[in-house]
């Protein structure tokens, strides 16, 4: 099970493919029904008034405001950056903007001097189906353009075929390309299909040096779901218990409502622990979520239900 290997910590488990497989397959299984029940139970927490206000503002501060469309233009990105820095009167800035590599420079220029980070997807996002050389070049590009955070995708084909060492090596190589930028590893949990795989992929990414594990590209459904988030939060919790290192979790894809975001914060609080309740260790990758958070923020302040005319479209 989950005990540290006797002498040299976790280095031993990554020494070869066989060792890696034994470790990953030796992790405790996840009972799907039980995990779903726990996630559902956590969702019954009632977060009102001051707690809700705190959670909404924290959620805003945890948003990676994202645009990843083929039709993105510098104009779109500039608009997004303005919103990111000042979502609304009195609201905190978001954690980061997230764009394709060729729009990183635009974002950096727009955000320069502010607290909002620039995150770039890379490694042939979203499919990851390119040669390693191409994928690393993609990273180099993004970092050179000024990205402070890189969101890579793992090779799901390799993972599902059991080539864990290959997946591991690619993450390690990508991390090396990042230089000072922090690396988020997108597992694409919808394609991994089982919670057991989510646990294994999470550990694989953490062992390989990922600073964050991230659920999804947002291009595949299902994306972030409560049971998946539960398993990933358990992984970073257990990883920290073994290594003393706290790594982060980013949930991306399909989170549109403030209510969901608050529920995820409850989950972070009760599963990983309050140390993870910071943008340094927890993010929401989202676009429309921000506006719903702002609408809820308005309601808390005014007491009345709000309407879309009172938040900006971008």
């Amino acid at each position, binding site marked *: *099970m*989950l*005990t540290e290997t006797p002498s040299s910590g976790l280095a031993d488990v990554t020494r070869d493919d066989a060792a890696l497989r034994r470790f990953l397959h030796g992790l*405790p*299984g*996840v*009972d799907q*029904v*039980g*995990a779903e*029940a*726990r996630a559902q139970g956590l969702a*019954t*927490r*009632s*977060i*009102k*008034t*001051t*707690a*809700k206000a*705190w*959670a909404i503002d*924290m959620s805003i501060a945890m948003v990676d405001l994202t645009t990843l469309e083929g039709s993105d233009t510098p104009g779109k990105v500039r608009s997004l950056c303005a919103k990111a820095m000042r979502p609304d009167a009195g609201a905190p800035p978001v954690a980061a903007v997230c764009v394709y590599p060729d729009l990183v420079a635009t974002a950096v220029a727009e955000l320069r001097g502010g607290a909002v980070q620039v995150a770039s997807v890379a490694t042939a996002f979203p499919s990851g189906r390119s040669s390693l050389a191409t994928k690393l070049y993609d990273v180099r590009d993004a970092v050179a353009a000024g990205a402070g955070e890189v969101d890579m995708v793992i090779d799901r084909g390799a993972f599902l075929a059991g080539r864990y060492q290959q997946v591991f090596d690619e993450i390690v190589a990508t991390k090396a390309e990042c230089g000072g930028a922090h690396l988020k590893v997108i597992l694409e949990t919808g394609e991994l299909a089982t919670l057991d795989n989510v646990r294994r992929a999470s550990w694989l990414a953490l062992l390989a040096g990922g600073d964050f594990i991230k659920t999804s590209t947002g291009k595949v459904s299902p994306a972030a779901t409560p049971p998946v988030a539960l398993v990933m939060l*358990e992984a970073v919790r257990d990883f920290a218990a073994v290594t003393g290192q706290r790594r982060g979790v980013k949930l991306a894809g399909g989170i549109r409502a403030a209510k969901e975001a608050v529920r995820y*914060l*409850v989950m972070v*609080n*009760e599963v990983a622990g*309050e140390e993870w*309740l910071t943008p340094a260790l927890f993010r929401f990758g989202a676009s429309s979520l921000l506006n719903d958070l702002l609408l809820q923020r308005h309601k808390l302040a005014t007491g009345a239900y709000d309407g879309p005319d009172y938040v900006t479209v971008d």
Partner: protein
Amino acid sequence: MSKVFEYAPAPESREIARLRPSYQIFVNGEFRDGSAEPVKTINPADETPLAEVAEAGPADVDDAIRAARRAYDGPWSKLSGAERGKYLFRIARAVQERARELAVLESLDNGKPIRESRDVDIPLAAAHFFYYAGWADKLEHAGFGPAPRPLGVAGQIIPWNFPLLMAAWKIAPALACGNTVVLKPAETTPLTALVLAEIIAEADLPPGVVNVLAGGPSVGQGLVEHDGVDKIAFTGSTEVGKGIQRALAARDVKLTLELGGKAANIVFDDAPVDQAVEGIVNGIFFNQGQVCCAGSRLLVQESVADEVVDSLKRRLTTLRVGDPLDKNTDVGAINSAAQLARVRELTESGTEEGAVRWSPPCELPDRGYWFAPTVFTGVSQAHRIAREEIFGPVLSVLTFRTPDEAVLKANNTAYGLSAGVWTEKGSRILAMAARLRAGVVWANTFNKFDPAAPFGGYKESGFGREGGRHGLEAYLDV
């Protein structure tokens, strides 16, 4: 409790319970005062009085049984099963309509968290009525012969741990099979049963078909001793159950008993740990451990004992103990001072006998009956806390080495109500399930209940089953 993310109080509104200053007993279709002195029922969370409740005396017991007999001989036996079923469907629907009111009332009277009464107790109670409603006109297909007959008048005595749910478990199958009923709710938790009586009256059930007598042990005794009953159904402690079985020895009154337990929750080295921890927590802290089928013994494989216990302790630090009406409360109050005293006494014995006691830090309110979730490690089979039913939020942790040893220890008790098994290995799940001498085996889950699933014990946990097709047998002359 978290300093970073403080959940603000989220109280459910007490007004929803529509609490009245007084409640009356229900005999022959009418609410009336009892012939004994009324008592005050109190809120165990803060010891404040909730309402005055009429108490039945011997005259009321006699009236109720006679009313049930008249109803049985008269209108009730003339109804077809289909008609009986429709009454039960009405009751089920009405319980659903008044679900929120009943949930708040239950939490006030019992002390259990509103989340449990709202999400478990009340929905299951409605489901029980709904399930048995459908059997009423299908008894010839139930496997008891072409025309199984009811027994007659059933005296039913229920405990305080799931007041409305236990009332549903008793009344629904009895009526479905064509019996009439005199129900005695527990002394400390009469309110939801008396509101159920209102629902039953509104459903226009013929007078006397269901009678509800609030009162203490003497009322229960009166029911058992009355020669007008054809059947007694009892849920409660093993000690009282044996007393009832003895008391009925000279008579041909059919009896079913659902008594205590000391269930083993068995965790193997390949268990899905996080879900097993949830199962352990649910097993012993759901309803403050005041559950006959509570997983009060954790039998953990020695090779993973430290890890599982560490995970468990970490998990327990997120349990919220407090106001039952707060929607975020996980663990509520103990039902009475008497029960709290029992829990304390047994817990003290754990320390005296050498086990190691641990509780997560939690602030208990000064008023009310409260006990912090407690885990004992270093427990051995001979300790009192491993043998006696505590009926509180106290877990005893023991270890085992092999599947055989787990079975041996799990079965090494006079009880036999339930057991839990946690392992990823399918063949082991089935082998353990076959060998555990318990009426309910939960594998990779715990504390799951459903009206379609029979529930009941082996050995001194009682006999007879409630739920499912098997639950009909208790109320038929077969």
